[in-house]
């Protein structure tokens, strides 16, 4: 789907490079989280995926189209949808439905089809009841959902999101994350840049970036469980993983590949059962008459 070959990029000629020779292949329908400290180049990288930035050296291809070829720009942007952190600055329409219609309108679709796609996209994110509201009356979470609806109306193969939950309340975060998982189950590819390791743990694949380089690429179990290594990069592992890590450091036999409370409860219960049975083995069984 997206193929990155030896991608190098610097914002100004001769200045330090923001990306240093990245190689990456992203398949169809993958759910990928991109993590890394501030200034590591995550945003720069994803901006190459839909030709907002053109490589200084190397190449980015979306399906058979190179992002260097300005003729295939619209085709690339139709396939790769992109949303940014501040939803407010992405909304261009004077009403919710008009904003969603912006993308399909840019594709030059006839009004009937624009209407159909707008209705579909709004139903998918659950904003159908607000179709005629002016965007500035929406809450932060609703604005982010609207931005997502605007992408979905373009019917992309993959959506790229730059910290979409950064300024949302827990309720809004949950809605956005649930929607992402639902979309992925329907076959849509998702690339999610985030600072939250809890959110990264929802992905099937995690990319870790540092100083313009891709330093790790693997399953969340492998990457997010490396607590000390994440800390050395200035990243905070999920709290629950850190708890397990502390238990492990204390000499307990537990795994650190744990990212949800439910999994932690299971692991700790198992640990307690093991402890109880081993303690029972050492202590003499209480006799009925003993007080």
């Amino acid at each position: 789907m997206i193929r990155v070959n030896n991608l190098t990029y610097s914002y100004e000629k001769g200045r330090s490079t923001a990306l240093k020779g990245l190689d990456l292949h992203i398949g169809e329908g993958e759910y990928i989280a991109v993590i890394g400290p501030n200034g590591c180049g995550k945003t720069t990288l994803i901006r190459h995926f839909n030709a907002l930035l053109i490589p200084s050296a190397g190449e980015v291809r979306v399906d058979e189209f190179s992002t260097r070829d300005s003729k295939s720009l619209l085709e690339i942007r139709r396939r790769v949808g992109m949303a940014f952190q501040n939803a407010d600055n992405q909304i261009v329409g004077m009403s919710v439905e008009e904003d969603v219609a912006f993308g399909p309108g840019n594709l030059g679709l006839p009004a009937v089809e624009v209407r159909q796609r707008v209705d579909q996209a709004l139903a998918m994110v659950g904003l159908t009841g607000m179709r005629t509201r002016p965007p500035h009356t929406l809450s932060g979470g609703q604005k982010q959902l609207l931005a997502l609806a605007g992408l979905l109306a373009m019917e992309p193969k993959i959506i790229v999101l730059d910290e979409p939950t950064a300024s949302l309340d827990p309720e809004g975060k949950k809605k956005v994350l649930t929607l992402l998982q639902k979309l992925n189950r329907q076959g849509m590819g998702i690339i999610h840049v985030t600072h939250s390791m809890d959110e990264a743990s929802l992905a099937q694949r995690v990319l870790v970036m540092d100083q313009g380089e891709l330093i790790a690429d693997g399953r969340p179990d492998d990457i997010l469980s490396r607590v000390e290594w994440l800390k050395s990069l200035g990243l905070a592992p999920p709290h629950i993983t850190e708890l397990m890590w502390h238990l492990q450091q204390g000499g307990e036999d537990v795994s650190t590949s744990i990212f949800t409370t439910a999994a932690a409860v299971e692991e700790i219960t198992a640990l307690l059962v093991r402890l109880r049975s081993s303690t029972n083995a050492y202590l003499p069984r209480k006799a009925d008459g003993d007080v």
Partner: protein
Amino acid sequence: MLICPERRMEMYKLGQYIYLESPVHRLDPRVKLIAVIALSIIILHVNFVGLIVASAVALAISLFACLSLGLVLKTLRPVLPFFFCLFLLYIFFTPGRPLPPFPIGPLQISYEGLNFGMLQVWKFLLLVVAASIMTMTTTQSEITMGLERLLRPIRFTGISSHDIAMLVSLALRFMPTLLDEMNNISQAQLARGANFNPRTISGKIRAIAYLAVPLAVNIFRRCDELVDAMEARGYQQGHRTYLRELVLSRSDYCLIAAIIVLVVVVVV
């Protein structure tokens, strides 16, 4: 007999769109735009009698639009001081036969001035009323779309009417956002001890700078992000389509024809 739907009593912002079902609301926005432009041309060429007829027509239209007279006249309130000053200029500075008990010293009011001043101010007020009726019966997006369609013939100049429509709709879209932002900035400045009601002129200028500079910086930052977002969603110069297509009905065509005939009759 025209039956107007009952409207809940709400505070409307002056000139803001009021959602109602009326023949005027249903008109194609292009017809309404043409009508307002036509009216401004006609007004330049009429005398008192013509002006009374035009005012009566405006009144009739506002009735058809189910807008109460009070609601329409209220939109005049913010412009009244300005037009009052204009009126004073006309009556004091138009030469002609003095109206007794003038002249008092250098001050003089002439018959001609009074006459002319009233006529001019009435014309301007009527224009404001006409524009208000349009904005109260047409949504902003309808106006933008109407504008886009009306401007399509300017394609030969190399300017795309789609770009102009985008420009207008972005301005309207971000107006409330920027107002919010201005409030935030002024509160942040107040919290840090800024004085927005200074007595001296230099203090007043400084107070404006406290607001304007951060606001301008924020606008530029927003623009950068907006451009990226628009490009990412496939915005390009040239043709695009919309959620709704404007279709002129037969009665719309008749109205446009009638308006054009009227303009020609009055002007020639």
